[in-house]
């Protein structure tokens, strides 16, 4: 499965990437599994996703949880807890 990944705020700064297309191995089926998989993609990803418990995710622009399945997703975003307003 190929999906577009987006990173925001300090997650983007740590990975060094704003967005990218990736092809996921079939065993990656949930948001939490995707975060664990991303962690192994290099030092920047490792430092970003070392804080996985606080990182939030969205699938196709709607908030998702670690257990949310990613099947069929076109766009998955990772970001810190929001601080607008």
């Amino acid at each position, binding site marked *: 499965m190929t999906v577009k990944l987006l990173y925001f705020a300090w997650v983007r700064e740590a990975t060094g990437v704003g967005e990218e297309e990736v092809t996921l191995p079939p065993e990656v089926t949930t948001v939490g599994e995707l975060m664990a998989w991303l962690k192994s993609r290099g030092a920047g990803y490792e430092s970003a996703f070392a804080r996985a418990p606080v990182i939030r995710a969205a699938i196709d*622009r709607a908030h998702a949880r670690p257990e949310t399945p990613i099947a069929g997703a076109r766009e998955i975003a990772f970001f*810190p807890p929001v601080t607008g307003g």
Partner: protein
Amino acid sequence: MIRVQAEDFDIGKEVEALLGGRTDIGAVVTFTGRVRDHAGGERIAEMVLEHYPGMTEAELARVEEEARARWPLQASLVIHRFGRLRPGENIVLVVTAAEHRGDAFAAAEFLMDYLKTSAPFWKKETTGEGAARWVEARESDDAARARWEGERK
């Protein structure tokens, strides 16, 4: 109505445009969030607001829809800015209009509590000494949102 923009807004003009000369509205509440010149005892020189284009608009629209499902609003408006902002500048505007003030006040507070915890914005502050840091989310904001969870209409 929701808007996400880099430009400033004029509160008076926005309210006037929203109400459009209607005479059936009895109560209008406006809330404006602004950039403070200090945080945690330090002077703040400026702030950069990053957001997730596309999801931001979708989340704000969802929050507004939820408010309109809970209270009989006659009009509502949310404007949120992004980009580089200095102390004293406007960040966010919420306007709610209803026949009576109770609904307008409650809906405005609800909109702020929900957008603060769900709209994908992130603030990065630069202090007077030039140090930049991401603003941490506050537990008090989650608590403010949680107040509304138990009283769905």
